[in-house]
């Protein structure tokens, strides 16, 4: 046996055939193995890349549909708003038309009366001339009386000081009288450059104004110009009526309601189609890339079998729940509507309060009433919002739509302004003719003992010195009597001239645009409220009545209290100031008007004298009351739920911006996973030989979302603050950011984007098919921390 083996070995040793072949075999095996390794690496990498491309493409596509449907619903909501705007305009046309037509026709009738010389214009002119005559008559009386006093002033008293003072008073009365008659009435330069010039716009006295500004030959031209302009305005109004007639002939509210219902129906249909569209799209991608795909979601729509159904991120406005709330102001439990928020019975309404005048103020100003009523509300209540989810675009739309018809009103107002200029030219008046009132005081022309200049009341009341003769007393009384009558006549003439200057204002005052705005605003509020009642539109699924987040309550409270206090002060300061001023003027607690001769002048003086006091006292009273009431209203205001379109962030903004992660994942995020088909598995060469007998199935996943980049853009909707009041159109300010994502132009900028798969762990738990894909790839667990750590894209 051993010999045989040795023999075989010897033969093999001698036999050289095939030795190269063995080497070649080994070499080729080596090279083929290397080729297989390279092939396999390339094959797996390519197929894996193909899977990733497929899954990214599909995810982006699904997110595109999600974004697209959101944009479509936004557009539909905008169409609903446009219908509402159309109705608001339609409703605004008749009252505005009636108001403007009535005004123009009344003016036309009045102008025609003037042209026929019946009344008004001529009467005014006659009155003015009579008033000038009365001024002259009274001047003669008062100057005579003053001369009489002067003649007796030297022996008024045995005391030289009293005599000197009385003499100075009489002299100052003469200065004031001379200035009034010579400068103010007759238009002469003042005796002292410290005294005012004549009152006319070109330095005329009242006399020149009367003579110059009432040329009889221009009256007819003036009235004819007025009539011609009014006729032009009526033509423009006719164009307004003709333009709006086709719309007004139809039942626009019914048409709008029908169209809104149709659009709303479209909205719902589009939303309902999303799931089927997404699945169809997924199939298309799977076929194109020849892979198996599955769709997963984090919120509703996950299924026990098969891919998830992509749900539209909307809710019907009618399905948003209302909220019960205890109203601390009324002491009642109320139900707050989620769309017409804080309206009607749920309005934030505070009783008016009686603001007591402080004791020390009553001591200072004894004539004041003990208390004033402070209005603590705004119309329809603090913070009310009609059709809250769509009000912003609706108001913007109405603002634009009203411009179309406003051009006619603008033309009417322009014609009236042109008429004003024309009338001023015809009357020789400067563009803004002003006639200065008779001043309360003028400067003395001489210095006093201290070297200063006394201010002399116009005209001053003279008081007879003690021990004066009866004649002097009688002369002083006559002066005082005629002095009052004289200054009263001067003021009356000045008022008549002012009336004369502004006589044609009734024909030239622009009013059409404001009438149109007023009508539109009333119609706007009505239509918006009706939209909120009907609730025929969709809102974002995250829209809800929610409490102001805890972190924001302190800031919101400060902001609301400040805004409410400011509003109460602003609304009340005027009426209370006027009431206090009236009381002060009536009672003259400081005795400031004692030096004045005529009641009109006295009241004017007292009005000026007490106005600052009145404002300060009113501010004290109103601000104290507002500071007392505003915390109560603000407390209720802050405790109220507000219509938040998205869940408020649980931390301060900034840095938190936009939608919270949970809402984003639940409503706007989807995940896709892909695995190869049987035919697209990697074709591994010599896999057993290469040590990869059980290669796990390839898998790729991706996450995508619909997002609105304007979430971060202040001009469109970003910049939402949760700890401050938000200024709005209807209610002044509200306690939440105004919704915008489904109803404004910025709201239809939803886009798809691939995102880091931060929802993968949640999706694996909710979507069995996704979980199956991962299990087939050898990933059998869904531990959240591990999934998150391994989620690299």
């Amino acid at each position, binding site marked *: 046996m051993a010999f045989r083996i040795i023999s075989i070995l010897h033969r093999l040793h001698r036999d*050289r055939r095939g*030795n190269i072949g063995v*080497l070649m075999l080994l*070499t080729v095996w*080596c*090279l083929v193995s*290397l*080729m297989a*390794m*390279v092939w396999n*690496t*390339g094959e797996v*990498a390519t197929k*894996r*890349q193909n899977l*990733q491309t497929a899954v*990214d493409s599909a995810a982006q596509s699904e997110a595109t549909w999600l974004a697209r449907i959101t944009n479509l619903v936004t557009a539909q909501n905008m169409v609903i708003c446009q219908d509402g705007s159309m109705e608001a305009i339609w409703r605004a046309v008749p009252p505005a038309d009636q108001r403007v037509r009535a005004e123009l026709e009344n003016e036309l009738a009045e102008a025609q009366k003037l042209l026929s010389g019946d009344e008004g214009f001529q009467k005014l002119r006659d009155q003015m001339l009579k008033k000038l005559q009365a001024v002259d008559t009274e001047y003669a009386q008062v100057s005579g009386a003053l001369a009489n006093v002067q003649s007796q002033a030297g022996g008024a008293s045995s005391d030289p000081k009293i005599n000197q003072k009385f003499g100075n008073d009489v002299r100052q009365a003469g200065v004031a009288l001379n200035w009034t008659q010579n400068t103010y009435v007759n238009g002469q330069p003042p005796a002292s450059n410290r005294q005012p010039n004549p009152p006319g716009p070109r330095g005329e006295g009242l006399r020149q104004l009367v003579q110059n500004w009432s040329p009889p030959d221009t009256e007819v031209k003036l009235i004819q110009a007025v009539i011609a302009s009014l006729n032009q305005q009526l033509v423009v109004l006719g164009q307004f009526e003709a333009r709006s007639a086709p719309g007004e002939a139809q039942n626009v509210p019914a048409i709008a309601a029908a169209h809104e219902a149709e659009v709303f129906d479209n909205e719902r249909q589009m939303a309902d189609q999303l799931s089927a569209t997404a699945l169809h799209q997924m199939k298309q991608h799977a076929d194109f890339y020849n892979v198996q795909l599955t769709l997963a979601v984090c919120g509703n729509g996950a299924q026990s079998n098969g891919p998830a159904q992509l749900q539209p991120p909307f809710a019907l406005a009618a399905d948003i729940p209302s909220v019960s709330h205890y109203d601390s102001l009324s002491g009642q439990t109320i139900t707050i509507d989620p769309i017409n928020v804080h309206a009607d019975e749920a309005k934030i309404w505070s009783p008016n309060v009686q603001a007591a005048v402080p004791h020390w103020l009553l001591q200072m100003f004894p004539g004041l009433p003990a208390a004033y009523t402070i209005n603590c509300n705004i119309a329809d209540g603090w913070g009310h919002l009609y059709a809250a989810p769509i009000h912003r675009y609706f108001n913007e739309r109405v603002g634009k739509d009203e411009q179309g018809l406003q051009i006619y009103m603008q033309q009417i107002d322009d014609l009236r302004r042109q008429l004003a200029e024309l009338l001023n030219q015809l009357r020789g008046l400067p563009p803004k003719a002003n006639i200065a009132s008779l001043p309360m005081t003028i400067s003395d022309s001489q210095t006093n003992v201290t070297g200063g200049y006394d201010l002399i009341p116009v005209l001053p009341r003279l008081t007879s010195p003690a021990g004066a003769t009866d004649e002097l007393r009688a002369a002083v009384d006559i002066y005082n009597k005629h002095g009052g009558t004289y200054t009263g006549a001067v003021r009356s003439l000045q008022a008549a001239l002012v009336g004369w200057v502004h006589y044609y204002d009734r024909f030239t005052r622009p009013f059409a645009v404001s009438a149109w705005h007023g009508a539109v605003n009333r119609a706007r509020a009505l239509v918006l409220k009706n939209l909120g009642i009907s609730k025929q539109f969709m809102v974002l699924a995250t829209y809800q009545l929610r409490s102001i987040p805890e972190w924001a309550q302190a800031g919101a409270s400060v902001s609301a209290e400040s805004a409410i206090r400011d509003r109460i002060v602003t609304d009340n300061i005027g009426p209370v100031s006027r009431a206090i001023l009236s009381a002060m003027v009536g009672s003259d607690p400081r005795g400031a008007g004692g030096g004045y001769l005529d009641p009109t002048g006295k009241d004017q003086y007292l009005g000026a004298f007490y106005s600052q006091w009145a404002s300060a006292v009113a501010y004290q009273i109103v601000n104290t009351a507002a500071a007392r009431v505003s915390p109560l209203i603000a407390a209720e205001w802050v405790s109220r739920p507000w219509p938040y379109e998205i869940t408020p962030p649980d931390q301060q903004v*900034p*840095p*938190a*911006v*936009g939608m919270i992660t949970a809402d984003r994942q639940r409503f706007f995020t989807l995940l896709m996973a892909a695995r190869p088909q049987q035919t697209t598995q990697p074709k591994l060469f010599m896999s057993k030989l290469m040590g990869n007998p059980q290669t796990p199935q390839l898998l790729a996943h991706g*996450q995508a979302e619909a*997002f609105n*980049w*304007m*979430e*971060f*853009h*202040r*001009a469109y909707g*970003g*910049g939402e603050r949760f700890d401050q009041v938000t200024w709005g159109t209807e209610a002044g300010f509200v306690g939440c950011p105004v919704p915008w994502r489904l109803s404004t132009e910025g709201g239809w900028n939803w*886009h798809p*984007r*691939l*995102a*880091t*798969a931060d929802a993968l762990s949640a999706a694996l738990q909710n979507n069995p098919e996704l979980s199956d894909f991962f299990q087939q790839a*050898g*990933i*059998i*667990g*869904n*531990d959240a*921390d*591990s*999934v998150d*750590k*391994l*989620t*690299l*894209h």
Partner: protein
Amino acid sequence: MSDMSALRRILITIHDTRGGATISFAVAFPIFLFIVGVLVQYALIVNAKLVIDNAAQQAARAAVTSLPEGKPDNVRAAAFMALAPICPSAKDSVTADAIALAQSLRTLGVSVPDSFSARYTYASEAARVTWDPNIDYTRSPSRELTMKVIYRFYLTVPGAARVVGTASNVGGVSGMFIDLLSTCQVQTSHSRAAFTDGSGWPH
């Protein structure tokens, strides 16, 4: 006579072909082995290049979504994960990240070789994953991005390694290495916060 014998023996020896094949083999085989070694080394390099290409693609894909969301570590991790299969085990130490990743993979039921952490650590030291550092992708709209992965590949074929590589030490592994480069261009996702200012507040 003796000279003649010696000459004959020399001639006989010269013309004797016995053992020639052995000598030829002894001379040619090392050359052959060297050539084969070079081929093997190049094949391994080609294979590594494919893996690095894949790593660059994985990193680029991670960059598409992770950079706009401020997670640049994801990008590097994606590259290191893809490179780990061709990496030797790091000899110095194993990083905590690598251990945590291996643990996470095992928690999810993935069969992970014991050497994964050390290989991943080596990859993290041998690879440079770079992209344009001057762009803040967290505040950018969609931008084009070039992902560059440079990997210091460990040459394992004796002899051939000396021809193509240079001596170095990476992660405690000494030997011959060659730097391999792969690039990949992608379009990043639009950052959610593209239009915010430095404090995160919208423009």
